C-alpha cells in the first residue's frame, strides 16, 4: 500500500521523477564542471513549491506588515542612531549585490548539476535569493523615505559602483559568484559566503541595529536569515556530494582556499568598519563577532567536521585570523580620509569610541588614535583642510581584490608591485592575491578606481558621479553628522582645496618592477 500524499518523502520522490535523459538533442551545460557529481544525493530542501509559496507569503506578511504599519506609524527610523543609519547605505548596497548574484549562480547550478536532490534545493534557493534582493531594495527605498538623511539611500545602487571601497565588493560577492565553474561558485556562495558569513552579516547587524534603535533592519535581516539556514544546508549537501568522489578533493581544497580569501579580503575589512565605527551603542567588536561566527562556528563547527573527508581548513586561515585585528581599522581610516567621495556621512570618533577601540584592540590608540584626533579637527570646513592630507598618499589598489594595498596595517602590509609582459603596472596587496594573479593574470584586467579617475580634480569627480545633494552644492558625504549649514561641506570648499585624484602607481618606474609572466 502506498503512503498518503501527506507523506513528504513520497511526494518528494514523485516530483523528482520528471527528469529524463534527452535523446533527440544532446544538452551541454552553459559551463562544464571540473567536479564529478554523484547522480543521486541527499535532499537538502524538502518542500514542495506549494508549501514554499505559502511559507514565504506568511513571512512576507510579517515583515512588510511590520514595516508598513508599526515601524512607519511610529516613525521609528527617524529616531534611530544617525551614525548607524549612515552605514546602512553601503551595507545594503553590498548585500543586494550578493543576493542578486546568487539568483544567477543558482540558475547555473541547476543547469550544470543533474542530481535531482541538489537541483530541488537550488531552485528554492534561487527564489529565496530573488526574495532577498527585493526585500533589501525595499528596505533601501523605505529608508530613503524615512531615515533622517535620505541621501545615499536614494542613490545606493548607482553610488556603490563608483565608490573606491565598495566597488571592491563585486570582487568578493558578485563577479566570483558567476564567472567560474558553477560548483566553484557554489563553494564561494554557499560554503563560505552563506555558511561562513551570513551570521556575521545578518545576525550581528540585527543585534547592533536593534541596540541602535533601528527596528527596520532587524525585521528584514532576521527574515532573510531564516532562509539562509536552508542555504547552508544546500551548501553542505553540495559539499557532501563532492566529497563523496575522492578525485574532487584537490580541486575542492583549492576552491575552498581561494573562496575564503576572496570573501575575507573584502568582507572582514568592510564589516570591521561597519561594526567598529558606526554603532553609537556598542555590543561587541567585529573581532569578537568574527571569533564567534567565523572562527568558532564556521571553522570550528562546520569546516572541521569535514576533516575526516580530507578537506582541510582553508590555506590562509591563520593569516586571516591575525589580520582581523587591524584590517578594519586601516580601512576605516582610509574610508574616513576619503569621505568626500562617499555616499554616506563618516562620523567623527568621540572619546568613548577611543576608549572602546583601545580596550577591544590594544594598541589601536597608538596606530590610529592620532588620525581620528585630527580627523575631528578637520571635520569643519572652516578649517580648510581635508582629512585626506593625514594619510601619506592614497595607497594603490590591488589588481586582484581592488582593496587598498596597505592591509592589514600600513607597517605590516606585504604589498608587492609588479609589471606584466606588456609593461602594465600592478599593485598586489598580499601573497594570496599575488598567487591568484600569477595563476591567471588575464582574469584581472579591470582598471582600478584610481586608474579610472587618475588626474581628475576631486571636485570634478564629485560632480561627475553625482555626489552632490539636490541644492547642487552640498556634498552627500560629510565628515560628521551635523546638519547646520555652517558646518556642511560644499563643492566650493572642495574646489578651493584643489585636490587631484592621483594613482601612486603613476609615478612608479615600470622598469624597476619585477615581471609577472
Amino acid at each position, binding site marked *: 500500500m502506498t503512503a*498518503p*500524499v501527506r507523506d513528504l518523502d513520497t511526494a518528494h520522490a*514523485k*516530483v523528482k*521523477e*520528471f527528469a*529524463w535523459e534527452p*535523446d*533527440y*538533442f544532446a*544538452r551541454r551545460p*552553459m559551463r562544464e564542471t571540473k567536479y564529478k557529481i554523484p547522480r543521486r544525493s541527499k535532499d537538502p530542501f524538502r518542500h*514542495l*513549491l*506549494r508549501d514554499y*509559496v*505559502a511559507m*514565504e507569503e506568511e513571512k512576507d506578511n510579517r515583515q512588510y506588515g511590520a514595516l508598513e504599519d508599526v515601524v512607519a506609524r511610529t516613525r521609528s527610523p527617524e529616531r534611530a542612531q544617525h551614525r548607524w543609519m549612515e552605514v546602512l547605505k553601503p551595507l545594503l548596497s553590498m548585500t543586494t549585490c550578493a543576493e*542578486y548574484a546568487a*539568483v*544567477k549562480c543558482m*540558475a547555473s547550478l*541547476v*543547469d550544470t548539476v543533474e542530481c535531482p536532490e541538489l537541483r530541488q534545493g537550488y*531552485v528554492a534557493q*534561487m*527564489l529565496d535569493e*530573488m526574495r532577498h*534582493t*527585493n526585500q533589501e*531594495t525595499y528596505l533601501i*527605498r523605505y529608508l530613503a*523615505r524615512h531615515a533622517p*538623511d*535620505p*541621501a545615499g539611500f*536614494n542613490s545606493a*545602487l548607482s553610488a*556603490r559602483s563608483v565608490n573606491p571601497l565598495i*566597488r571592491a565588493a563585486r*570582487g568578493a560577492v*558578485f*563577479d566570483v559568484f*558567476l*564567472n*567560474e565553474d558553477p560548483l566553484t561558485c557554489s563553494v564561494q556562495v554557499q560554503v563560505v559566503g552563506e555558511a561562513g558569513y551570513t551570521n556575521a552579516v545578518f545576525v550581528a547587524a540585527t543585534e547592533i541595529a536593534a541596540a541602535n534603535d533601528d527596528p527596520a533592519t532587524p525585521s528584514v535581516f532576521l527574515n532573510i536569515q531564516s532562509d539562509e539556514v536552508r542555504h547552508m544546508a544546500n551548501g553542505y549537501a553540495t559539499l557532501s556530494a563532492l566529497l563523496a568522489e575522492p578525485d574532487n578533493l584537490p580541486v575542492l581544497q583549492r576552491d575552498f582556499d581561494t573562496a575564503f580569501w576572496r570573501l575575507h579580503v573584502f568582507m572582514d575589512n568592510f564589516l570591521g568598519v561597519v561594526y567598529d565605527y558606526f554603532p553609537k551603542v556598542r555590543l561587541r567588536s567585529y573581532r569578537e563577532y568574527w571569533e564567534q561566527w567565523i572562527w568558532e562556528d564556521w571553522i570550528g563547527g562546520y569546516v572541521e567536521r569535514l576533516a575526516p573527508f580530507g578537506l582541510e581548513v582553508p590555506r590562509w586561515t591563520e593569516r586571516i585570523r591575525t589580520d582581523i585585528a587591524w584590517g578594519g581599522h586601516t580601512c576605516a581610516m582610509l574610508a574616513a580620509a576619503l569621505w568626500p567621495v562617499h555616499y554616506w556621512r563618516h562620523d567623527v570618533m568621540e572619546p568613548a569610541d577611543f576608549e572602546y577601540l583601545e580596550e577591544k584592540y590594544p594598541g589601536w590608540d597608538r596606530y590610529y588614535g592620532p588620525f581620528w584626533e585630527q580627523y575631528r*579637527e578637520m571635520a*569643519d570646513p572652516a578649517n580648510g583642510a581635508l582629512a585626506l592630507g593625514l594619510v601619506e598618499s592614497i595607497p594603490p589598489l590591488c589588481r586582484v581584490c581592488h582593496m587598498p594595498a596597505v592591509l592589514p596595517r600600513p607597517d605590516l602590509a606585504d604589498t608587492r608591485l609588479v609589471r606584466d609582459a606588456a609593461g602594465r603596472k600592478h599593485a598586489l596587496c598580499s601573497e594570496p592575491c599575488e598567487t591568484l594573479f600569477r595563476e591567471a593574470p*588575464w*582574469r584581472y*584586467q579591470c*582598471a582600478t*578606481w584610481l586608474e579610472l579617475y587618475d588626474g581628475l580634480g576631486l571636485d570634478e569627480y564629485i560632480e561627475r558621479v553625482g555626489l552632490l545633494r*539636490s541644492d547642487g552644492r552640498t556634498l*552627500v558625504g560629510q565628515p*560628521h*553628522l*551635523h*546638519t*547646520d549649514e555652517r558646518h556642511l561641506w560644499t563643492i566650493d570648499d572642495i574646489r578651493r582645496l584643489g585636490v587631484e585624484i592621483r594613482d601612486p602607481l603613476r609615478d612608479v618606474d615600470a622598469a624597476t618592477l619585477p615581471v609577472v609572466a
Partner: protein
Amino acid sequence: MTGLQTAEPADGFYSPRELTYIQPAGRRLSDYEAAICHVQPDVAHYDFGGWLILAPDGENLFEESSTRLRHPDWFQYRDPSSLWQRTYMRQQAVEERAVAALLDSARANGYLADLDGFWAREILARYHQGYGFLEWGLFLALNRAIRLALSDTLTMMITFTAVDRLRHQQAIAMFGLELEQELGGIPEGLGREAWLSAPAYQPARRVVERLMAAEDWCEIVVVCGLLVDPLLATLVGRHFFRRFASVNGDAVTPVIAMAAERDRLRYLRAVRAVVEMVTADTDRAGRPVPAAANRAVLQEWVDDWGPPVLSAVDAFLPVFDLPSMRPVVGEAARDVVVAECGQQLERFDLELRR
C-alpha cells in the same frame, strides 16, 4: 568640532526621498521598479571599468553575444505584470491553495474514486502525467535564460516564469500521486512511458529537448512564449485537458489547467513586451534599435521552430479521439490555436509558416 549642536535635519536634507538611480517607465517610480531595477551591476550603466574578475576562459560575466537580438539597453525592459517577489508570492500562494484545497476535498469526498476508469488510467495517468515532463523541460530551458539574461528586470520575469513551470509540473505530479493512492491498480510510470515513447508526445519531446539545449537566451524566451505556449501548451492544456476533463466527469484537472493557463497568459504579455522592445524604432532614450535586423532574427526563429512545434501539435491530435466524451474535434482545436498564434505573430509582422 567639539561642542557643535546637532540640529534637526530638514526633511529630505536637500535630497529627494525617492530612488534617483532608476528612470521610471511611467510618470512615477513603481514598487516593482524600485524592487529590481539596477540590482544587476552593469558595465554600461554605473559599473565603469569592466568586470573585476573575468572567467577563466576570459569571458565577461554577461555577453551581448548571448543572444542574436540586439538592444541598446536591456535594462529598459519592464514586465507588464509588474510582479516582484512579494506580489508574485502572494498571487501564487492563492493559486496553490486553491489547487491543494481542491485535491483535499476530492480525496475526502471520495471524488477521485468516482472518476471514469479509462479517463483516470489512460488519459490522466498516461497523458496528463506525461505532460508534466513537458513542464519540467520548459523549466530547465527557461532556467538557462535566467543566468544569461542581460538585465535584472528580464531576469526576474524569467525566474518567475521558470518557477511557474515547475509549479505546474509539481501540481500534475501531486495529482498523479493522489490518483495512484486513491484508485489503486494504476501502474507507476505511465506518464514517463508516454513522454518517452508514445507517438503523441515524441515531436513535443523533440521540441522541448531542443529548447533545453538552446544557448541563445532570447531564443528560449521567445520560442517558449510565442510558439510552444500558444500552440502546444494551449492545445494540450486548454483544449484537451481542461475542456475534455469537464465533460468526462473530472473537476480537478480543469482547475490545475486554468492555473497554468493564467501563468501562460501572463508570460505571453511579458514576451510580447520583449518583442515590442526589440522591434521598436528607438529605445526610451531615443537611441536607434536595430528593429529590422531583430525582426529578421525573430522570423528566422519562427521559421525554424514553427514547423516542429506544429508537428508536435499534430502528433497529439489522435489523443483527442480517445475519451468517450469529446467536446471538440482535435483538428478544430488545432485550427484555433494556429489562428490565435498567427494573430499574435502578426502584431510584429511575423508569420507562422509550415
